[in-house]
């Protein structure tokens, strides 16, 4: 199903806010003080979104639309200045550690081996290091780094570092996995392989994923639903449920249906960019 909403529409909800969702965002607003001139800027305004357990949901949108900010709100790194974000019905601020983030850069500690890095989340939960390392092992295997667990990050390729980054997040066994453009620093081939790998892992691991990307094809290939956000201040303008069979081989990307989805989302984003451009008097495009 495709639900498209004009910017002037007041409300967007596809999943029902009946409390059954794992993640529920209602009227989220984010203001911050711009360091340059002290002006209050609204990054997100009136964002509604709900994600059901086990869903793979991607967020796309023009640059600066607040999609990474939203991810950081869900992670609890920053607090929304308005609205509500609920995880399992409870405000996100009160929920301890049900989420884990796969960062845009691998951000592995260079002074720790792969296994110690992957075990880091457990170590922070005061699991003794030896046990944490033992519990990290299946995840290292899952991402295909079993042979490299004793290596240091600088001895790994970019793709392998990103696998370790993923394993580190999986090891804490989160109910909600947050991914912030995790493949954007990889070359095109590695990126495709990592997308396939991620789907393989996700199908085996079956947990909820919230994935931010600016690559439309990536979002369509991976997701059950693609959320399109408006330009700043960001809100949801479209919530597209993808009707593509799983498991999805990379060849899916060359099917007509896949490309239709891609086109549709592309046009939605383009429209947002144009609106943004006109609103800012053509001076500062939201690109």
């Amino acid at each position, binding site marked *: 199903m495709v639900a498209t909403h004009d910017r002037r529409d007041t409300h967007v909800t596809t999943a029902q806010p009946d409390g059954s969702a794992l993640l529920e965002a209602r009227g989220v607003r984010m203001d911050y003080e711009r360091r340059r001139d002290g002006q209050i800027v609204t990054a997100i305004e009136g964002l509604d979104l709900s994600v059901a357990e086990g869903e793979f949901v991607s967020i796309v949108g023009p640059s600066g639309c607040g999609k990474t900010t939203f991810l950081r709100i869900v992670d609890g*790194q920053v607090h929304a200045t308005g609205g509500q974000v609920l995880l399992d019905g409870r405000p996100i601020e009160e929920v301890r550690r049900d989420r884990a983030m796969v960062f845009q850069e691998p951000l592995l500690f260079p*002074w720790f081996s792969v296994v110690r890095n992957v075990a880091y989340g457990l170590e*922070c939960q005061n699991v003794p290091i030896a046990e944490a390392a033992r519990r990290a092992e299946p995840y290292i295997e899952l991402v295909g780094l079993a042979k490299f667990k004793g290596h*240091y*990050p600088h001895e790994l390729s970019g793709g392998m570092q990103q696998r370790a980054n993923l394993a580190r997040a999986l090891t804490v066994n989160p109910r909600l996995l947050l991914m912030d453009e995790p493949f954007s620093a990889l070359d095109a081939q590695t990126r495709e392989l990592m997308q396939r790998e991620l789907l393989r892992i996700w199908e085996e691991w079956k947990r909820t994923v919230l994935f931010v990307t600016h690559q439309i094809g990536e979002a369509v290939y991976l997701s059950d639903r693609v959320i399109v956000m408006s330009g700043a201040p960001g809100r949801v303008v479209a919530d597209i449920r993808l009707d593509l069979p799983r498991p999805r081989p990379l060849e899916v990307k060359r099917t007509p249906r896949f490309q239709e989805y891609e086109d549709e989302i592309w046009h939605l984003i383009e429209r947002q960019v144009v609106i943004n451009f006109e609103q800012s008097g053509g001076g500062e495009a939201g690109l």
Partner: protein
Amino acid sequence: MTTVAAPARAGRFRMRPGLERVVYPLGLAITIIVVWEIATRGGFIKRILLAPFSAVVGSLWDGFVVRGWLWPHIAATASVWIVGYLLAVAAGIAVGLLVGMSSRASKIAQPWLNAIYVTPDIALVPIFIIWFGIGFQFKIWYVFLAGFFFVAVNTLTGVKASEGRYIRVARHFGASRRKMIATVILPGSLPYIITGLRQAAGRSLVGVVAAEFVASNTGLGFMVSVAGQTFDTARVMAGIIILVVAGIGTAEILRRVERRFDRWRA
């Protein structure tokens, strides 16, 4: 017609690069020693100004082996040096961490650290003697002061340079403050801390000798000072040589410590 090139190894003799590092300085040392010996034995330089190398060696032999008078001095200097240095290291790392991690502590401590830096240590000797008297305690605190600043400031710099992105990761995974220090801040600032340890080792050795010069009745600094006053140039040189060897040895040990952490550095 073809001409056959002569094999390359028929050319100039080449040493292995590793060997060069040993052979060249050694060659220079031997040259200096030979010139030194000839100049002093041949009467070109007065003995009171420079004892012959063989006399210095004789003095070392006597001090170490025959009569053993060097040992108490070495023991005194080493104990002061080690205790004062270790205190400086412990306090320096602690203060550096504290100051580096808290902006308030940084505001309070920065001017004091600057003050320690610009104060000539030697100017504090009289007040230290008044406080601690002449003896072990005075020397310890003096050495401590000489080394402390370098450990503290380098640690501080390392902590401030520790990358926010790694701290963000640790915070994301819910690291406690202690965990954060142990797994992110300390490892991240280790290269800086080791630089501090190396600088402090040298400075605190200077501190020991200075303290022994002005207020001590034992130690290598005292020994060299007394030998100088009695124009026993051989003993003076013997003392200097021991100090040089100690300095080089320590630097080498610290270099090895540093290399142990090189594995994770790209």
